């Protein structure tokens, strides 16, 4: 199974490996979610969704369904 942003632990950092371009909106890329960029899961909302992440210097909240489509690799 691929590791995605959704499967990170709180505080854990990883690098974005691939964004599934058909499912990921352009807006997410424009907000700084790019392949090769470090992403950190900061917090999960109650009920585990949405996810609060830090990526490329930006603090963003994205829904779990979106996070599951972004695969990551550890160092």
């Amino acid at each position, binding site marked *: 199974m691929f590791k995605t942003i959704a499967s990170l632990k709180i505080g854990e950092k990883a690098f974005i490996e691939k964004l599934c*371009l058909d499912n990921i909106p352009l807006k997410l890329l424009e907000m700084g979610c790019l392949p090769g960029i470090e992403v950190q899961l900061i917090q999960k909302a109650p009920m585990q969704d949405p996810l609060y992440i830090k990526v490329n210097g930006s*603090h963003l909240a994205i829904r779990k369904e979106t996070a599951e489509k972004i695969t990551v690799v550890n160092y």
Partner: protein
Amino acid sequence: MGVDKVIKVALIGNPNTGKTSLFNQLTGLKQKVGNYPGITVEKKQGFCKLNEIIKAEITDLPGTYSINPTSMDETLVLDTLLDEKGNTFPDVIIVVVDIENIKRNLLLFTQIKDLKIPTILVINMVDQMERKGIKINVPLLEAQLKTKIVLASARKKIGIEQLKDVLIDYKKLDTTPISNISERIDKEYFTKLKNAFKEFPLYKSWLLITQIQEFEFLSEKQQELVLKFREDLDCIKRYQHRETILRYQIINEILKESFVVDTAKATDLRGILDRILTHKVFGYVIFSLILLFIFQGIFDWASYPMDLIDGAFASLSSWVKTVMPPGTFTNLIAEGIIPGIGGVVIFIPQIAILFTFISILEETGYMSRVVFLMDKIMRRFGMSGKSVIPLISGTACAIPAIMASRNISSWKERLITILVVPFTTCSARLPVYAILIALIIPNKPVLGILNLQGLTMMALYLLGFTAAILSSILLHKVLKINNKSLFVIEMPNYKIPSIKNIFYEVVEKTKAFIFGAGKIILALSIVLWFLASNGPASFKNAEETITSQDKNKDISKEELQKRIASYKLENSYIGYMGKTIEPIIKPMGYDWKIGIALISSFAAREVFVGALATIYNVDSDGEDVGTIKQRMAAEINPDTGKKRFDFPTGISLLLFYAFAMQCIGTLAIVKRETNSWKWPILQLVCMGVLAYVSAIIAFNFLS
């Protein structure tokens, strides 16, 4: 003073960059809010004197992260920048970026720069630079970005004068794009595109073909070409992604040399606040407390100025009657216009208080945490975390609330929010509730600290929210809309709110309400007064008819006057209207007088109280100016001999007003925002049926 040159300036930036602060600093109170043609997005414009002869007309465009729009207000930025013949097309653009998020902010800058319009970069919040350990090499950055940079702190008034100087010399700005991104993507493709639209900058042509919308300013031939390019959607999508990745690469390269951050200096106050404010228990507790505090403000604090306003207008009316010669004109002023204006002014305290709270929550950055906290819950009802803001705003007025739903990018979530917002208890319902509660619910303490009337009011608020939630669940199940949701929100850093920004925001929102809804209320009050003081032949002969009746022979002069007035009202135009609908409203327990109030409040709910005031004012002999409440309490139902506003009738009215869609302004805004008559008509019918049925059930059950 001769000002003979106006430069058109567009202010653009990501949300939370202090763009509005800068706008307020530049324009001060010389602002105007208009609407863009065809849509209801507010157009904020203001003037700023640059020197003795040059003035800047500044348009504050909605905040956006990219030039590629994902919601209605973002579309506006693109439209403004692409339509060269449009009347807001700028001579020069100011892009505002926040020093802390400069990397992401520069994406928008590089896109705009490629349109070859003179562009100035304002780096805002530079007063934070030292504290955050940031160093910028401005001359180097200016050379790399091919622009003029102004370091500013809009809140501390740093850099404003320098910005004005740069604006004056805008013609000297470099308009070449930052780098040849298109060549790095696919040289052949972009050469083809360039040759197809020789009249446009290449990036503009690229934007034209990547959007789904139609651009009205294009000629027929250009439209055709655009459509032909759009056919290869996969290719466009791929290149858009490439473009974004390349832009970030360029930005990273640039910033590597000219921008240094010493991360050791960053503090983690944000992290601590986040952990508390979005905590699974404390987060909700804090949010509930804030909501309670807001409602306390709307009810409790607002009631003092509201009572003052109410009293002032009542005494103004009676004063006018004593000083002006009796006649139609005096009556028009004292019974039509003054109560009409009073009916608008009385809402100002509540609306101002509510918008003060909302803008504080937005300014501090807390609102994003609420969205984060509530998103999963709201999604069960087919809405988004972002729907929370419209639902709270709805407690002031549904019109700005529906407009606030514009940043919800999923159409289904936005539509459901728009459809259910009118159920929330807006301030127009408050005077109706207040007067009815005062009439039917005893003012008794409950459990020592609470009050029965207050509790009833709270129950009505809960009823509104429950109706909104239940109908959203229903809509979520019924509406078959492909919901390709896109939910990305920025979690901005916490900020101390700027009093100036809040003040402008509140003034603007209140003004919009007064001039929007206010006009309708005032006009209706006057129409109503006219309909109540004129009528067909039977109305004109009222005096003779009553005086000649045998049963009226032996009564006092005062009693006679009262009977004449009452007869007049019954035979006025509005009396006839009320009587016509009486059979329909009888099952709910209403008579023709309440019918008159119902008819008039189909335009706007608050007119109910004004209408009753007019009715009972005309009905009384006009000299005893008591409060409306006293007059309503004294009214007797001739069928039962009991009070007209008894418990069953009161409850039935409360339910009717809680559910019915009685607001022309809201219907108009829903039509404009959904671009179809289908949704406002659906709202009107469904809410009307619900109101009618529940009022009938309640009345018959209770009596």
